[in-house]
């Protein structure tokens, strides 16, 4: 008898997802799937809109990374109007954006990810942020809440709202930064740097000093040798706001380095007649299926991918944390999926240090923050590193700036192939001879959670109806589940 195990809904991640595991007669895993089960349709309904409204509309794709959509959208609008923002506007956007990364990484690490490490053996009802605070102490809980609050407050000061920013528009920002606000941000940045240090120490004490967890992180259960993609600055250091996209192979060798505007020459999306999800892959390598290795077009994005494609971090404490991570694994790239969590904390440090650098930049309070567009709008691409990976916004407008076409390649979709591979591999390694319990199933979900998938983002344009999938049986055995991913 074939048996199916459903994990529904996937919890402690953003959006609607579920995992399906198919077992054979002996209770061993034949296959495992990660299904995204929601739909909204942004690409189409952005057509006909005033293009300058898209930085206010597209953030609603995702309430956890709205700042990424706002910023990518504003950069696409700059390009549509060929309007370069003044230097202070670019710096303010980057400062805003660094705070955004800090918020997202704190949220994911402490509220979504860390309960798996700290409360691994606990009952499901306790395996959450409240259980985490009970286990590590209220002081740490307050530090988490306060510092994520600072990241939100910085976004609110510059963006107008702690969650949904509104202030970026073609050619710059709607408002400059005042001196009192700059001072407030500077103080909060100092606190965020301390908190980043504390977070790295917590990771070291609770995870790296726990032999069982270290073995888990290092194990083949959570490991895939893939390509990686992410944005780097001119010195090949991690950059969230501006730079070129670098792709490395599973050995760490650069295979492409391209401007965001050239994304169509480097990334393609595969379409299946029997699935609603598209699958981005490296155009140069081609789509070869859900497999590891240099011959596969599968690539990964998000924190660990960004560290893997870069040669280091641009700020001192983050650079130290970066070196520690690679020293621990003894080489680069690191293919261990659970290391995404650690990489997030390295990036938290970089984001915090970058906020402070920018808050101390004499130009940051310059009142010239906008260039009024003077050329006719046409077409533009805006790219940032969203917390969950590279994010592309591509707009075409008419000569009045009315949107004709929109194409979005969002972060999580690019990890889609890898998440499916990770679910199958973890399930096959963990579930043997029909022995399965909540703890093991949560360890399968950990393979998903490491990618911090944002299904709200992933499903911006996936037209589907949220029925629990379709099963195809062959000779009485489950042959195929749809959608397959």
């Amino acid at each position, binding site marked *: 008898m074939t048996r199916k195990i459903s994990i529904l809904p996937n919890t402690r991640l953003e*959006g609607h997802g579920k995992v399906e595991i198919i077992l054979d007669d002996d209770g061993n895993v034949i296959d495992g799937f990660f299904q995204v089960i929601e739909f909204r349709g942004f690409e*189409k*309904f952005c057509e006909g809109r005033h293009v300058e409204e898209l930085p206010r509309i597209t953030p609603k794709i995702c309430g956890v990374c709205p700042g990424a959509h706002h910023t990518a959208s504003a950069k696409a609008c700059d390009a549509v109007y060929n309007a370069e923002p003044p230097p202070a506007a670019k710096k303010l956007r980057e400062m805003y954006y660094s705070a955004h990364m800090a918020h997202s990484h704190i949220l994911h690490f402490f509220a979504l990810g860390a309960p798996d490490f700290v409360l691994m053996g606990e009952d499901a009802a306790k395996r959450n942020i409240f259980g985490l605070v009970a286990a590590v102490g209220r002081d740490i809980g307050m530090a988490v809440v306060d510092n994520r609050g600072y990241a939100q407050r910085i976004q609110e000061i510059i963006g107008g709202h702690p969650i949904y920013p509104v202030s970026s528009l073609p050619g710059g920002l709607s408002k400059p930064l005042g001196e009192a606000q700059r001072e407030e941000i500077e103080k909060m940045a100092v606190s965020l740097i301390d908190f980043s240090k504390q977070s790295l120490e917590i990771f070291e004490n609770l995870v790296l000093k726990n032999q069982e967890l270290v073995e888990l992180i290092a194990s083949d259960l959570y490991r895939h040798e893939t390509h990686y993609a992410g944005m780097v600055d001119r010195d090949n250091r991690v950059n969230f706001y501006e730079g070129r996209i670098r792709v490395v192979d599973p050995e760490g060798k650069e295979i492409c380095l391209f401007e965001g505007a050239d994304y169509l020459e480097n990334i393609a*999306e595969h379409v299946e007649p029997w699935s609603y999800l598209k699958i981005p892959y490296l155009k140069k390598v081609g789509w070869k299926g859900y497999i590891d290795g240099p011959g596969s077009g599968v690539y990964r994005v998000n924190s660990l991918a960004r560290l893997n494609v870069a040669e280091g971090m641009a700020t001192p404490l983050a650079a130290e944390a970066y070196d520690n991570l690679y020293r621990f694994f003894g080489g680069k790239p690191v293919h261990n999926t659970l290391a995404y969590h650690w990489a997030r904390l390295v990036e938290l440090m970089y984001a915090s240090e970058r906020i402070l650098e920018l808050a101390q930049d004499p130009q940051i309070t310059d009142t010239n923050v906008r260039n009024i567009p003077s050329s006719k709008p046409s077409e533009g691409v805006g790219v940032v590193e969203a917390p969950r990976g590279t994010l592309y916004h591509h707009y075409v407008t008419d000569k009045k700036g009315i949107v004709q076409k929109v194409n979005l390649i969002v972060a999580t979709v690019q990890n889609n192939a890898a998440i499916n591979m990770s679910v199958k591999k973890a399930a096959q390694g963990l579930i043997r001879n029909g022995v399965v319990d909540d703890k093991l199933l949560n360890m399968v979900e950990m393979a998903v959670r490491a990618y911090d998938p944002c299904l709200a983002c992933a499903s911006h344009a996936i*037209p589907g109806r949220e029925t629990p999938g379709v099963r195809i049986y062959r000779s009485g055995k489950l042959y195929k589940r749809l959608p397959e991913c």
Partner: protein
Amino acid sequence: MNKIRMILNWGASCGGCDVSILDIGRAVLDLPNDVDILYWPVALDFKRKDLEALADQSVDIGVINGAVRTSEQEEEAKIFRAKCKSIIAYGSCACFGGIPGLANQFVGEDLIARAYREAPSNVNEEGVVPSRESERNGYVLLLPEFASEVRPLEKLIKVDHFVPGCPPSTSTVAELIGNLGAIARGDAVKKIFASDKSLCYDCPREKTKEAKRVEKLYRPHEIIAGNERCLLEQGIVCLGFATRGGCGARCIAVNMPCRGCYGWLPKMADPGAEAMSALAAIAGDWEDYMPPAKIFDVLDAVKDAVGTFYAFSLPSAIINKKRG
């Protein structure tokens, strides 16, 4: 005192509403003192079976954010209604349809064509699109059908309280949390957690309430707006005059216009039509009389009436859906 039993869920949403709950700060750490949260997918590991196992009417409060688009969202909303004594529609999507409601301007076939045939990143020479039935290796494969439209929660189940905003502001969330006990006890608590008066009454700008004509309309990127004067008076379409207050006027604080996320005013029959009508009445540089054609010239700056006047409310409008 018994703890308040509460469950939370998301529909066709983005997660921003859940983040807005976390944004209340340290108070979130104290929630477990007063509230037993029995389902909340973004934060807790309770699964569908745990939700289904709750006895009918055994939960005091159910909070749902997001609109209703899919059959599963519909099913879960109905389960919530059965389990809970009070249902709260949380956020603009649950209350009015929200930004994803703009999809009601298009039929499903258009969405498919854009995503799978036209998108420039696709490699799809045969024009393959997901189809309800397709054949592969001799087997007929099936895919689910489309949901035809985005609906606000109230079109599906009875809603007891509405908390508008995209997302609700921290002050609105704090007010809601302060009222949870009263809601759980069934005491009289206001139905809509927002002001009954327009945002103009809360606007910090000096000259918001003066009677002035709007000589010329601008799109926000076309001018650098002043910080003191009413944005509408400066020619930027700001929907504050037709929108409930309660948000704290944060968009306006960074010099950007209101787009209406707290919803339309109680006396308005349709979210956008009356706002459009009111705008037409003050548009143009005139004293006694202005030829209608001139009014159209002024309003020509608005190329997207739906996106401007129904950004958050299309599914709640009188005309709310393109039929296939």
